[in-house]
């Protein structure tokens, strides 16, 4: 994916200004920056989740395989089938674990044969490193799982529809350190098949888990801008921008 001069507005307010960002395929790109700088807004622009906010508007282009996902003839629903999303708080459906994973698949293919669907559910749960923990209780509600398991269920649900890109909006902020490590390990396996973008407040997480890092900052007019984009190692060891250095070393704010 590629953002070209993308600006995101909420009504008259410009929340994100002029971001040009190449997202490398099958790599993990982390977005870091202080609160309110537009990280989540930028992330949500990549699968048109901002469309759900009535006043939101995107200028510039965001390309998926060379096609602008904001072109007039593109359907946001189609975009979201290809760009999945995992949210800050685990939000499984109050339905059985099986149905949680099968939901997206059934939408695309309502008459999918049961064995085929079973296979996809198992494969997705294995992909999210959750299969062994839930294989005996697929009929139990997804909301009965622990927080970390719920988040992995949400990942399984997202990858079940076989997207190209996975967006993760602070996926570990509601989890304990052990569940966090599990998700991070999972991300490393997932990146073999998916392009991943993750918003995080946790510097160590960005440093540990990502290949590329975007540093964002709020401008005086409160619009968020991208001040640096580079390989993660570079950002954390040898940033070009003073503000990045201050931020990643914890001297900021």
């Amino acid at each position, binding site marked *: 994916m590629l953002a070209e001069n993308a600006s995101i507005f909420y009504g008259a307010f410009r929340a994100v200004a002029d971001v040009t960002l190449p997202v490398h395929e099958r790599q993990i790109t982390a977005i870091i920056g202080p609160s309110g700088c537009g990280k989540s807004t930028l992330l949500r622009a990549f699968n048109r*989740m901002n469309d*759900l906010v009535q006043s939101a508007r995107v200028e510039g282009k965001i390309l998926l395989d060379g096609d602008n996902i904001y072109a007039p003839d593109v359907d946001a*629903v189609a975009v*979201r089938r290809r760009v999945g999303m995992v949210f800050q708080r685990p*939000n499984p459906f109050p339905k059985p674990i099986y149905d949680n994973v099968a939901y997206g698949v059934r939408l695309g293919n309502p008459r999918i044969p049961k064995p085929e669907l079973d296979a996809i559910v198992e494969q997705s749960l294995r992909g999210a490193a959750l299969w062994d923990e839930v294989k005996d209780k697929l009929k139990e509600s997804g909301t009965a799982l622990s927080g970390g398991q719920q988040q992995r269920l949400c990942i399984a*649900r997202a990858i079940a529809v076989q997207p190209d890109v996975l967006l993760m909006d602070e996926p570990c902020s509601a989890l304990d350190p052990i569940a966090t490590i599990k998700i991070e390990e999972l991300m490393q396996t997932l990146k073999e098949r998916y392009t991943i973008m993750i918003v995080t407040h946790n510097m160590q997480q960005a440093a540990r888990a990502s290949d590329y890092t975007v540093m964002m900052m709020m401008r005086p007019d409160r619009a968020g801008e991208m001040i640096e984009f580079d390989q993660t190692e570079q950002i954390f060891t040898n940033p070009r921008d003073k503000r990045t250095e201050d931020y990643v070393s914890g001297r900021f704010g």
Partner: protein
Amino acid sequence: MQSNIISRKRNAKIGQAIMFASTAFALIALVALLLNVLNRSFGNVIVRREIEPSVLSPTPLEQLSRDELNALVKRIADSDDYDGLTRGAYRRLDSEKPFAERSQAEILTVINERLIKEEVVASFTLWQTLFEPASVNAELAKLNNARKAGMPEARVEFRSWVNARFFTQTMGSVAELSGIRTAILGSLAVIAMTMAIALPIGVGAAIYLEEYAKKNRLNDLIQTNITNLAGVPSIIYGMLGLFVFVRALESFTSGAVFGIAGNNGRTILSAGLTMALLVLPIIIINAQEAIRAVPNSLRQASYGLGATQWETIRDHVMPAALPGILTGTILAMSRAMGETAPMVVVGASTFIVSDPTGPFSKFTTLPIQIYNWTAQPDEQFRNIAAAAILVLLIILLSLNMIAILLRNKMRNTN
């Protein structure tokens, strides 16, 4: 420092006492209401008969078979001993409906009406029954002294005005023989009609307003007005129903359009439509609140998987909001159940003995029935009015209880 804490604590105590008093006041009001209804629904009555059944037959009449009763009636008529059932009267009754074809209950009714003529001549409240038996006995003595020679003595009986017969009888000119069958069936029919109309429209409007409508002035105006409509006095809905459904759309609401002749517009359909308008704002507002209470994260999860808006509403929002919507619906139902004013205006029948047969039949409802009975001069009508109030209250309280149980169940599952 120290004195400050003491005065603050004292203020807190005073506040607590005031709130306790408010709660107690509300409770007392509720208990008083119930006691008042119970007081009139049960109590002693003085029953007078013109002929004791034992004079007619040594075995109790209820134990006689149909044929034995028939023989008894024939024998009495042939003897010409009783003014109530002379030979001529027997022939007239037989030509109306041959005795051979009458059921046991029907023949018993004839015997009761013509011969025994059991009637309640005085009724007492539960309070008088329990705590002032002297007044009951005084009345009894007075009646017995004044009775005509040869008549059996009046007796005191305890009576629950809510009894099996009360539910199965239609209304009549004698209080103790009247029941709420027509009224209950009418109420049920009107409620069913109301819900069939108001539920789909109300829920549909709520979904539109919450999920689809954009935030703009027009929609704000609509929202405000729906909230206002919930506060419009019900009599005004009654007037609207009278002009629109009963009068203007009479050919539709009377069923004339469908080839059903002989009705006017004062039908169950008109009442249901009027009541639907009345409860619509309640259903919409409650459904909106239920839909609003569905966490946004659920919608986002669905959209994030590439579900359309309709799929999201159908698969996630509606199931999650359903208990709340049902709660609101039940509350709306109990409101409709108790409404009286619009039914008076729309034209519920004041006297009707036939069960409702369809959307185009005449009807009456429980509150109307109660209202009519309280306006009757005969004291016993006040007893059956109280009994009907008791039935209505029980229905309403059970509906509210179901609503509360549903709400609790919803809280537990989320």
